[in-house]
């Protein structure tokens, strides 16, 4: 004890402590600090993230797209709500002043309620993937709108709250996200459960090649909704994800130590987990 006090110079410097009150002001709490900032400054433009794109107007989300989610065109045309021709006409005629949505409504080919709900479905679905944890920072391009035009803008806080709720919902059903993107195959549980009509439609498309987004597109349903069914089927043991790639022959490398500087395989599940943890910490 005396030794410590006698040599104050030998003590390590105090570790820096982040002032949480000012940190909260600087980085608003949310899934993407950048998105919260754009909402605060009422920005208009396009936010490009690793797994999807969000379109903003006056700080609100007006549209979202993701390679993992079927587009509005698929949701509208798959069930005969709108003919593919009518959709193409509106897309081709859309310009800066008259968005495709306005043209569709004016032509009377679709009811406002139908378009609004399909659009919200597509928006929240794509945004769920666009806001997924990413390994690269997002980029924002100011200024450009979307050719669809306004339907029903969604506040950023609502979108983030719903995206978080969806993550919790999926994890509550079956806390393993391996089935979300891997090719899916049928499995034979000893006691097959009773399946709903929606689940049977999903099950009929399992062939060991199709992934969840493929199945969603084939059925004309949002991918998140398909994931709800897929996680339930996985929990019931009716479905199992197949490994992404057949494992390469491990013999030559098994005993050899990894060369210095070589990084672990990027599809190591721990890396994905660590990225999610990092994103969650950054959002604090």
């Amino acid at each position: 004890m005396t030794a410590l006090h006698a040599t104050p110079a030998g003590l390590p410097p105090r570790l820096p402590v982040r002032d949480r009150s000012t940190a909260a002001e600087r980085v608003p709490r949310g899934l993407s600090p950048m998105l919260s900032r754009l909402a605060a400054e009422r920005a208009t433009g396009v936010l490009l993230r690793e797994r999807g794109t969000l379109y903003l107007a006056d700080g609100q989300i007006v549209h979202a797209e993701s390679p993992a989610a079927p587009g509005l065109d698929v949701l509208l045309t798959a069930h005969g709500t709108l003919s593919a021709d009518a959709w193409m006409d509106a897309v081709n005629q859309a310009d800066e002043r008259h968005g495709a949505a306005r043209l569709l409504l004016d032509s009377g080919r679709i009811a406002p309620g139908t378009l609004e709900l399909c659009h919200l479905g597509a928006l929240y679905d794509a945004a769920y993937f666009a806001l997924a944890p990413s390994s690269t920072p997002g980029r924002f391009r100011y200024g450009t709108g979307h050719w669809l035009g306004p339907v029903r803008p969604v506040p950023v806080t609502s979108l983030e709250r719903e995206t978080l709720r969806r993550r919790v919902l999926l994890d509550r059903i079956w806390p393993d996200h391996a089935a979300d993107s891997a090719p899916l195959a049928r499995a034979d549980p000893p006691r097959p459960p009773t399946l709903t009509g929606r689940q049977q439609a999903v099950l009929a498309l399992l062939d060991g090649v199709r992934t969840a987004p493929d199945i969603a597109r084939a059925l004309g349903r949002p991918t998140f909704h398909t994931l709800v069914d897929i996680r339930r089927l996985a929990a019931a043991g009716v479905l199992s994800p197949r490994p992404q790639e057949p494992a390469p022959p491990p013999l030559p490398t098994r005993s050899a130590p990894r060369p210095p500087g070589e990084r672990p395989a990027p599809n190591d599940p721990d890396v994905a987990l660590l990225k999610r943890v990092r994103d969650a910490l950054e959002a604090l």
Partner: protein
Amino acid sequence: MANTETSLKEALTSIEGATGVALVDYTSGMALGTMGGSKTFDLSVAAAGNTDVVRAKMRTMEHLGLKGEIEDILISLSDQYHLIRLLSGRGGNGLFLYLVLDAKRSNLAMARHQLKKIEQDLEV
């Protein structure tokens, strides 16, 4: 021809005793639109929770092998009625209308009838 907002507004203003209404997607549990409610009654939370009610009933019917479709579900509390009316959306997702009524001020049979009419106007 009505959008979600006008339909929900109509439900809230024209149905006697209505204190809150929501249009809910029951696969995701998301409220696609809400109107009414209060600080102590969060309609988004009610929407997500009642999704489980609808799902449980549907599963039970499948276990029993019942082929009929659910038209509506009534939950009566000591001072409120909660009415759930199922509708099928064109986007391939099941939806339901969720209506909260003050038990003292409402006419249940009338409310059911009006909710059915609002569903027809909604064109989802």
